[in-house]
């Protein structure tokens, strides 16, 4: 029983990390209908920035702040340089350009920082947190709790403040937003900046006191099913989807993999789940159902 609880709680917290990355993904999708395949690379880029600033002997908090600031600037640059010239292009081209961005970012990170593994600074203590029968990694625990706070903050932003409501209008329809006098361009730029900061935060939780190299960007592909399961417009839905995927993955890893030999079930689980959900409810659990007209 203790073991089961351990796996469940751990899985739930990892699920919150996935939800965080999926949130970074959804924020961009809501603003620009851009499905950002480069999300994993954005996470690792944030990690590299924080590590890089930290390696200049900056204090931890300063490295953190400059890391957030730097990634926001990079997010803005990506929007200005790549996505603004693409406004008005078909969605297909927008998806393709994020694939190009994914390839380019990975190549650039390799050229700038090289393929070596690097020790990532320790932001959260590595001493495990013990609560009854459950032993938890502190980074994931704090990360999960902070994620919940961030989710509350973002959903307040989108639903209560005037600014956020403008962003929601942009999510609904670009033409309506434009005719209400809301600048679609700036909303998309703002979304990229927020998303880059969220990605950096996720990378700090994910990489805390472990090693950093470009292969870690696989986390982006593991978070994609969470975004789809929740529905790309949803925010709170991500928490539930993150919990489902995280717990399911942990339990599949713990109870199915040993019987199958060689493992792998835990990796495939989110995707198999996603395939089923998409077949039954293509817009995800909480996505907006958009009626298409010819």
């Amino acid at each position, binding site marked *: 029983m203790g073991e089961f609880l351990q796996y469940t709680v751990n899985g739930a917290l990892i699920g919150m990390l996935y939800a965080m990355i999926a949130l970074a993904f959804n924020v961009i999708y809501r603003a620009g209908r851009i499905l950002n395949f480069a999300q994993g690379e954005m996470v690792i880029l944030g990690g590299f920035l924080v590590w890089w600033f930290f390696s200049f002997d900056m204090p931890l908090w300063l490295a953190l702040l400059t890391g957030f600031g730097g990634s926001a600037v990079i997010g803005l640059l990506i929007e200005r340089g790549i996505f603004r010239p693409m406004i008005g292009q078909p969605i297909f*081209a927008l998806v393709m350009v994020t694939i*190009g961005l994914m*390839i380019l970012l990975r190549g650039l990170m390799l050229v700038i920082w090289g393929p070596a593994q690097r020790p990532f600074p320790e932001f959260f203590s590595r001493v495990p947190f013990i609560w009854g029968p459950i032993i938890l990694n502190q980074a994931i625990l704090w990360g999960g709790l902070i994620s919940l706070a961030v989710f509350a903050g973002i959903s307040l932003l989108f639903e209560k403040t005037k600014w956020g409501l403008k962003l929601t209008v942009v999510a609904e329809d670009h033409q309506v937003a434009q005719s209400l006098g809301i600048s679609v361009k700036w909303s998309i730029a703002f979304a990229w900046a927020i998303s880059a900061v969220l990605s950096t935060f996720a990378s700090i939780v994910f990489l805390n006191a472990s090693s950093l190299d470009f292969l870690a960007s696989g986390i982006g592909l593991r978070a994609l099913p969470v975004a789809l399961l929740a529905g790309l417009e949803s925010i709170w839905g991500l928490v539930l989807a993150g919990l489902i995927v995280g717990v399911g993955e942990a339990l599949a890893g713990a109870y199915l993999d040993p019987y199958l030999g060689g493992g792998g079930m835990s990796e495939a689980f989110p995707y198999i789940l996603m395939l089923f959900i998409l077949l039954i409810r293509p817009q995800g659990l909480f996505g907006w159902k958009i009626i298409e007209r010819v």
Partner: protein
Amino acid sequence: MARLPCGVYFETYDKERAYVRTKPQTVCLIIFFILLILAPFFLSVKFTSMINVMMIVMVAIVGLQITTGYAGQVNLGQSAFMGMGAFVTSSLAFNLNWPFYLAIPAGGLGAGLMGIVFGLPAYRVKGFYLALTTIAAQIIFPILIMRVPDSIFGGSMGFHLEPASFFGIMLDNETKLYYLVMPVTVIMIFFAFNLVRTRVGRAFIAIRDNDIAAEMIGISPFYYKTLAFFIGGLFAGVGGGLWAYYIRYIAVDQFTLWFSVWYIGMIIVGGLGNIFGAILGTVFIRGLEEIITSLGPYLVDIFPTVGGGAIWFAGMNVVLGGAIILFLIFEPRGLAHRWNILKTSYRIWPFPYS
């Protein structure tokens, strides 16, 4: 539509739709085929092997062009489909001693069936959601190969394959392999060129442009989307079968998601919705790859942090990623469109317009 020299008139629609429309074009085509057949005799072995790999990839890319460029179904799993073809081909050749002329088509069918399975969600989900289900194919593929008993697909060890033999001739060097790879590639490309102007090809284009409108005029999206995935998978499988006989050692790590992503890049650079674009894109990107490989040592001097092991991967990613973005921003119709402009301006020279 490319403009034709003045004085060329057509009497039937069929003649106008033909790919080879004038006598000089026929002559050029014949000369091209003669050169293609004689190529290994005047090219070095290194160059022949480059062309072999290029043509194998080209088969898969042309298939991807049909699924993605013509039918509009984003497919980020082409590399997995290719792997499926390679594994089915080698399994049949290795376990059942099938000759290559049966094993390669069977590999194509195997990959086509896999394409159907992962293309079925296309009926319910669209566009980028679909891209994700094909990524699922890419993630499930290695697990599937590892999961079945080692005697069928070789498991984590992969397969070592005997060279293909054709009436007692062992196809074991680059020149001989060229004569296996080249005819198959030519046949597949011929098939693709003709497929896209049949009823099926037009249905694909209708679905790409607007699948709801296509359904209104009686084109079944379910049937044609599934068919598009089947055909794309078939091409990938044939490419994979050729690859299995070419490399003679296959393992799951030769068919990663990253290659699927590069393949999409190739059709973007070449031009979406154009078979010739797929060919141009493959040649262009593979050419860049070769250049980066040969420049590798110099690049290591310039960027010492990258190191010799990763310079190829890093350089390739920067160049290809940059190329995809630049093409999508400045020339979304790709190299094929530029090529058409070039041809037209040559024909109407010295006038700027006709």
